[in-house]
């Protein structure tokens, strides 16, 4: 069966520090991968998606970047965190266009102080 792993679960980082969040998927090949951010009490904002290794589409200009170094690995990064980067970050995967649904990871709660 397919599983998605996302870590860490919680993270507190000072302003100006770097960020690296990792997401891996098991049990499937060539998944579409997604990074979402959810601010407190808010909806889901798509940050990046990837349809293959090295292929990254950015939906929102921001202080973040994403990379896909391996087929089932998706990394969200920042060189210098801002207070506004705080939020709940979710990784998700789908088969193709997702008509069988997205599967979300358990999320990372990032607090920038």
């Amino acid at each position, binding site marked *: 069966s397919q599983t998605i792993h*996302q870590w860490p679960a919680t993270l507190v980082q000072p302003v100006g520090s770097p960020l690296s969040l990792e997401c891996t998927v098991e049990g499937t090949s060539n998944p*579409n991968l*997604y990074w979402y951010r959810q601010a407190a*009490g*808010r*909806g*889901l904002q*798509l940050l990046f*998606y990837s*349809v293959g290794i090295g292929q990254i*589409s950015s*939906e929102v200009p921001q202080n973040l970047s994403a990379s896909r170094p391996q087929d089932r690995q998706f990394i969200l990064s920042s060189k210098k965190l801002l207070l506004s980067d705080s939020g709940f970050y*979710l990784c*998700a995967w789908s088969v193709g*266009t*997702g*008509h069988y*649904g*997205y*599967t*979300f*990871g*358990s*999320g990372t*709660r990032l607090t920038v102080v």
Partner: protein
Amino acid sequence: QQQVKQSPQSLIVQKGGISIINCAYENTAFDYFPWYQQFPGKGPALLIAIRPDVSEKKEGRFTISFNKSAKQFSLHIMDSQPGDSATYFCAASTENGNQFYFGTGTSLTVIP
């Protein structure tokens, strides 16, 4: 521009009552409409989904009603329970698209 509009933002229902959440869309190319349930501190999980070739889909206490001509769909939770208290997101996608378009979410509280 919000591709999928969801209402209400929050909803309080008595135990045993019916919870109704509504969504509307404009893009007639959308052909897949899932609902996700999210508990605090967790990722959203697929709850139920419908395609536009049917007007209703039921799974247990959860029902999606779909009105293609009005470009609207809704989630009905029958016999609502305190354990249903969560945030619910509707979404829409196209067969050839690479992403889902999510509604802004509805926070449901079921009072015992």
